[in-house]
């Protein structure tokens, strides 16, 4: 790589050396010199729209925008004098006068870049009369409100949607002072192609896009009361870096760390940004025990733990230790998973230990243990991506975003096989195969690519095999140099290991033999599934029918598996560790013990691709009296070993 030459220039009389090719704004910021900006955002491309960054170059009468003007050797830049300040203040006055920028009834007052600039430039009145135009307010979205009256048309949302998310839902419509941000084509956010990731919300410098949660100052207070805490989102195995804004142990909002150093560029998905600030359900803050009349009664920790120890001990006596089970959510941290595993293997070595997503693990196990994967970041290196059974718009929205960006930026071809097409019209090819048709479809592809890959002759016929489209699709795979296969949870959920084996073989074949890791990514159903499976918490074989009672540790994020809890409908005893009270639990369980949410505990989580792990710091304090999973299990195991009942 050629070294970039440094050039010297003067900024505010100071001689500075900067790499050639920088803008005046970048050069100034590198040297700690402040230039105000509004439409500029460090995570987005330069725009040059608002002109607040105007500076004087070589004393020329015409001011230039610092964010888009490249530095030149010997340049003499002045970033602030009376003329520049006057120009910036006039720009602010025009912005304020154009639309409704009355701060006193704005949701983001006190947290607004436009307001901060007005304060900085002492804009204490307007010298132009306000235009008093009225624009629509879009309240159609569940999480966000778009108020065009607060918009300064900086275009950050448009650029974020296109450059970070690869979605291009937002753009401009109309002209001049009548310009508006448009959703799709003259649409509204609700019901649009918007993926609700909130990137536009995060970069919006004013109250034009704001979320529906904790917006009132009575809840969120003033910005001086807020604490920003860096952490990670463990809701899927991508572990996106986050910044949580907290006031008095109340979560106000979660943002991505922008500008992002990783290929996801600091974006978050709707789950990472909005789910934790929504009210998930009634919080459980003290143990509940089911009384003789079937109603829930508050209990002390000691009584609740005694009840669990007694209830499970009875099952051990009556049905033997193999009738006992421990199930844990794969959303739990490594520490919680290993402590739970240790608890079950110590107290009931013959008992059944599994994760709530164990069947996905067993499907993969059937296709071969330890299937190697490539990091998800390699998606942007592929020239062809085949997605099979991916419903990533729900479980891994960032994967869908990266797929769209690969299409936009690298002209990557994408083919989708499965009941759902998360890429929509951007996919080059979509085979709408039902669950039953998946094996046939994959087999048909393998036969075309390399007959050795299909060991079973395809049974039955598929209408789309043999069509022109299918031939084009096969050609896409054949021509690709760096094909990547993504296996989704819809596929692992069906439990058809044969399809997965075929796809692994296909990935291996397309990766030019066994010398390299096959270009393959397997999406996991829960945030820490990769760790739960590799730590051996998930059962290799399912033995549910003999189970009579046990313990479930659930975080509430991954939902409740009706089959899982429903199949042993005649459970004699069930204790559940959960942060939330849910109706499903209320019907099934005998004792409920409160645990912290993932926001309230430190913990280690593994990347989905097995490439490592991250330590996630907590951002909230658990409610008083709610101990960690580890503490609760320790207290419980003490009671169980103290009552070593003899099996009959």
């Amino acid at each position, binding site marked *: 790589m050629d070294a970039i030459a440094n050039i010297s220039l003067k900024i505010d009389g100071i001689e500075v050396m900067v790499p050639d090719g920088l803008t005046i704004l970048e050069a100034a910021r590198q040297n700690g010199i402040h230039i105000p900006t509004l439409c500029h955002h460090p995570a987005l491309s330069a725009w040059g729209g608002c002109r607040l960054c105007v500076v004087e170059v070589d004393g020329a009468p015409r001011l230039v925008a610092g964010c888009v003007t490249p530095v030149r050797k010997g340049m003499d830049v002045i970033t602030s004098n009376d003329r520049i300040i006057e120009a910036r203040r006039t720009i602010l006055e025009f912005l304020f006068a154009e639309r409704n920028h*009355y701060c*006193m009834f704005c949701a983001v007052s006190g947290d607004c870049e436009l307001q901060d600039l007005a304060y900085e430039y002492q804009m204490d*009145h*307007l010298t132009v*009369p*306000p235009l*008093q135009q009225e624009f629509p307010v879009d309240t159609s979205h569940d999480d966000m409100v778009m108020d065009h009256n607060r918009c300064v048309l900086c275009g950050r949302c448009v650029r974020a949607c296109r450059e970070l998310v690869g979605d291009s839902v937002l753009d401009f419509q109309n002209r001049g002072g009548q310009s508006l941000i448009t959703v799709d084509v003259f649409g509204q956010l609700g019901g649009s192609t918007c993926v609700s990731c909130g990137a536009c919300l995060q970069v919006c410098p004013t109250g034009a896009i704001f979320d529906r949660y904790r917006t009132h100052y009575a809840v969120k207070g003033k910005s001086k009361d807020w604490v920003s805490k860096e952490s990670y989102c463990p809701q899927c195995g991508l572990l996106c870096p986050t910044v949580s804004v907290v006031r008095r142990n109340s979560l106000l909002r979660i943002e991505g760390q922008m500008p992002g150093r990783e290929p996801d560029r600091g974006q978050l998905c709707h789950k990472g940004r909005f789910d934790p600030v929504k009210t998930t359900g009634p919080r459980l803050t003290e143990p509940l025990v089911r009384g003789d009349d079937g109603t829930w009664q508050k209990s002390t920790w000691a009584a609740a733990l005694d009840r669990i120890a007694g209830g499970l001990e009875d099952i051990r006596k009556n049905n033997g230790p193999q009738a006992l089970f421990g199930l844990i959510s794969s959303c739990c941290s490594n520490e919680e998973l290993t402590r739970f595993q240790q608890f079950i293997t110590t107290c009931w070595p013959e008992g059944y230990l599994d994760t709530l997503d164990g069947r996905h693990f067993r499907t993969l196990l059937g296709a071969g243990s330890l299937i190697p994967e490539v990091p998800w970041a390699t998606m942007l290196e592929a020239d062809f991506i085949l997605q099979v059974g991916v419903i990533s718009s729900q479980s891994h929205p960032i994967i869908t975003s990266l797929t769209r960006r690969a299409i936009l930026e690298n002209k990557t071809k994408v083919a989708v096989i499965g009941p759902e097409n998360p890429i929509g019209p951007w996919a080059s090819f979509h085979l709408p195969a039902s669950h039953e048709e998946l094996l046939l479809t994959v087999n048909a592809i393998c036969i075309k690519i390399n007959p050795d890959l299909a060991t079973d002759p395809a049974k039955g016929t598929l209408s789309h095999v043999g069509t022109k489209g299918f031939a084009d699709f096969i050609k896409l795979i054949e021509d690709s140099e760096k094909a990547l296969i993504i296996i989704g949870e819809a596929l692992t959920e069906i439990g058809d290991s044969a399809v997965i084996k075929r796809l692994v073989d296909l990935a291996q074949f397309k990766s030019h033999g066994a010398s390299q890791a096959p270009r393959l990514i397997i999406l996991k159903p829960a945030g820490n599934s990769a760790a739960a499976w590799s730590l051996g918490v998930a059962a290799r074989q399912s033995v549910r029918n003999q189970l009579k009672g046990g313990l479930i540790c659930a975080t509430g994020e991954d939902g409740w598996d009706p089959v899982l809890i429903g199949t042993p409908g005649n459970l004699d005893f069930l204790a559940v560790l959960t942060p939330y009270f849910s109706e499903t639990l209320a019907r099934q369980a005998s004792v409920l013990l409160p645990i912290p949410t993932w926001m309230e505990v430190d913990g280690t989580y593994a990347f989905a691709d097995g490439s490592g792990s991250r330590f996630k710091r907590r951002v909230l304090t658990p409610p008083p009296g709610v101990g960690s999973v580890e503490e609760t299990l320790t207290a419980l195991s003490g009671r169980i070993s103290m009552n070593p009942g003899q099996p009959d």
Partner: protein
Amino acid sequence: MEKPKVATVWLEGCSGCHMSFLDLDEGLADILAAVELTVTPITDFKDYDFPEATLGIIEGAVGNTEQLEILHKLRKKCQVLMAWGDCAVFGGVNTLRNHIPTEALLTRGFIQTESTVDGVLPVHQELPALLPQVLAVNEIVPIEIYVPGCPPSPEAIAHALQEVLQGRIQRMPTGILHFD
């Protein structure tokens, strides 16, 4: 030396700015020692024949003909005018009505409201008529000093008064300047 005379008026506003002024608490004693308060919103006027004053203070925007008259008369009698609060400075929350024609606004308010029976429009020669738009005071007369805020903080009001009493006319400094 004679103390400077100060007149304050209350146009289309909520009195919040004057409340914020009263919120200066013991600071009021210092201000009242330095100035002579000749007119306040509770001074009873029939024709707004204000006495001459050094400083005129305005709270509220201008939304009807009476407020327009007060503002013009105050301007004539004062050397310096100071606008208090977002309503006087920018029009403020009153401008919500600027998107609605006056006739429709009055009909909705005085006839169509759900609790109104046999309502009539308040149109009478003794009553001030609404202007078609609510305006900030500097859209009508020149203003020297602006103290925005909803309401302006007591600190902002005290700062503005101290500065003007010492003969300085300046923008509100960053740190004290607030819109909410």
